[in-house]
């Protein structure tokens, strides 16, 4: 365990940023936290978490894939993927750190998505343990310890110090370049105990999804609850886009008159044209689209991935859904019938 005084935080950021691009949660124009490229003057946000999750840095909303030039019948493929430089992201919470396991299972499974893979290899994740969880937090449901997050390096922060523990080779390598003081783990242990006390008092503590594992896929799918749950869904993509584990994407072409740029961008299963084909769509109403999102997180994904749910309990959808419908309400309603 190592430490550095909070007053030295900017020196630490400057030392990291001297070698690699550093992203830290900083307040944006609306006062919400956002992973921001650190430069002198960028202050660490005191918000619990960012609105957009850390997935943005590994799987950006828009990503250039390839260019094409077309002349008559001739076609040319021009590889021009966005350059990815080595970077460090500081202040990732335990939930977002756990979301990388889920994204890895999608993008790093065969065939490997090299765009994501490159960013994963280039990125060093420094997590920050939570000290003031919110009422919307439920990472404990998925066995995530908010006081001991994963990542290449784990940090804890109290009023005086930032405590630092490297977990991986990548983390060790970064640590070796920094000027940190050795220390014992007693302050961290004390903080962890205090925070665990708060975590036990969270209103969503005790929320249990394990019932879904014993259910037949078709029983959940055919639940009569879906109609009422989805009734007021606006069909917007807020939940999808703030979700650290949603990874559906669309591939689109943009023709600027001289060349065609093929890019991919986030997509949402909540959108009406997500599965639209020339002859129609197989999910014609919002009920089917809404059901798809939650079935995927609660049933389909675990079925294919050793029982791991496609949710990390970050609570972003609880905060941001315009009509306050979310995975907690859905799971609770469905469980009434189990």
């Amino acid at each position, binding site marked *: 365990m190592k430490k550095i005084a909070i007053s030295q935080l900017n020196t630490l950021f400057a030392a990291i940023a001297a070698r690699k691009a550093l992203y830290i949660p900083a307040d944006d124009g609306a006062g919400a936290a956002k992973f921001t490229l650190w430069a002198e003057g960028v202050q660490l946000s005191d918000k*619990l978490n960012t609105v957009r999750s850390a997935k943005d840095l590994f799987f950006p909303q828009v990503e250039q894939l390839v260019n094409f030039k077309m002349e008559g019948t001739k076609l040319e493929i021009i590889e021009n993927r966005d350059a990815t430089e080595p970077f460090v992201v500081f202040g990732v919470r335990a939930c977002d750190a756990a979301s990388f396991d889920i994204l890895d299972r999608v993008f790093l499974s065969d065939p490997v998505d090299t765009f994501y893979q490159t960013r994963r290899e280039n990125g060093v994740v420094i997590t920050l343990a939570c000290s003031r969880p919110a009422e919307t937090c439920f990472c404990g449901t998925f066995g995530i310890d908010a006081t001991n997050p994963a990542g290449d390096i784990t940090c804890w922060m109290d009023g005086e110090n930032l405590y630092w523990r490297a977990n991986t080779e990548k983390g060790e390598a970064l640590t070796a370049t920094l000027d940190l003081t050795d220390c014992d783990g007693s302050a961290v242990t004390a903080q962890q105990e205090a925070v665990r006390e708060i975590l036990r008092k969270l209103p969503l503590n005790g929320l249990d999804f394990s019932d879904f594992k014993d259910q037949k896929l078709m029983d959940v799918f055919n639940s009569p609850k879906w109609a009422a749950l989805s009734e007021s869904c606006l069909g917007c993509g807020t939940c999808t*886009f703030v979700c650290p584990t949603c990874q559906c994407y669309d591939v689109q072409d943009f023709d600027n008159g001289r060349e065609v740029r093929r890019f991919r*961008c986030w997509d949402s299963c909540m959108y009406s*044209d997500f599965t639209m084909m020339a002859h129609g769509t197989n999910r014609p109403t919002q009920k089917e689209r809404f059901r798809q999102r939650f079935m995927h997180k609660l049933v389909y994904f675990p079925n294919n991935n050793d029982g791991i749910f496609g949710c990390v309990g970050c609570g972003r959808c609880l905060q941001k859904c315009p009509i306050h*419908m979310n995975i907690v309400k859905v799971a609770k309603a469905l469980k009434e019938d189990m």
Partner: protein
Amino acid sequence: MQERLKQKAIELLQNGTADRILGWKAGEFFYDLTPAVFTSKEQIEKDFVFNVFAGANLSKYLIAESRKGGKVAAFIKPCDSYSFQQLLKEHRILRDNVYVVGVQCDGMCDVAKLGCEGILGVQEDGESLTVDTLYGKKTVKKADAIADRCATCKSKKIVVFDELIGEQGEETEADRFGEVAKLEAMTPEERFDFWRGELSRCIRCNACRNVCPACSCEKCVFDNANSGVRNKAAADSFEENMFHIIRAFHVTGRCTDCGECSRVCPQNIPLHLLNRKLIKDINELYGPYQAGADMDTKPPLTNFTVDDCEPSIVHERGGQ
């Protein structure tokens, strides 16, 4: 108030006035109400809620609800009633299938304005809210937690209803255009920087569009592959600008200024300012007009006079 609404809902179901009730359903916390349809007394008793966080405008749901057969009763607040009447004017809601219960409103609160972390519960007592949190209790004056859009409420008048709960109100004198005027006073460079800062946060989740009662197209131009402008994400800052310019323009003269767009924006972009700018322009250039205020007045963009100002007025009057 909540009890009066509940009783009314049950009464309307029982006396056969309505088959379904459109209202708000309790959530996990005090503040996360979900619009919901109730069909039984039991459901209403268990889940129906009306409190200072019942901000969602229910009128847009009535486009679909009024077509589902049977009759639906909906609780409509003053600002919602403007949206409702505007939708009636555009023939989007089947009026005969809707029973409107007008509900007077003292302004809704914005949970972010409570300034509390780890909210466990909120108690409403008179003019203050007592917030119980993981990190202690806090008392907040309701007036301090009121949503921005309600602080500049245009009208407490319920413009269309079948019956009323609470008093009928009047149009207010609130200054809705102060923020717009502040922006108008800036230089174009400053305005450009301001809007770039705001719009660059947009994640194109479409929440503003999908919640907007004026955005009721069956197929939005931005979803239409044949429109040439379909996009799912802003791949360039131009597309961020275009989406919001066109969206604001498409609701010009139809936007009732309900403020839902800004309420639902996950990135807190003050989208209502674009709409208010257009409302302000319409009022100044073509005479006062309030969308949804009545069924008869011609909307400004489907109307004209031969003496209308020329577009060059934008150059002549400068920033305004």
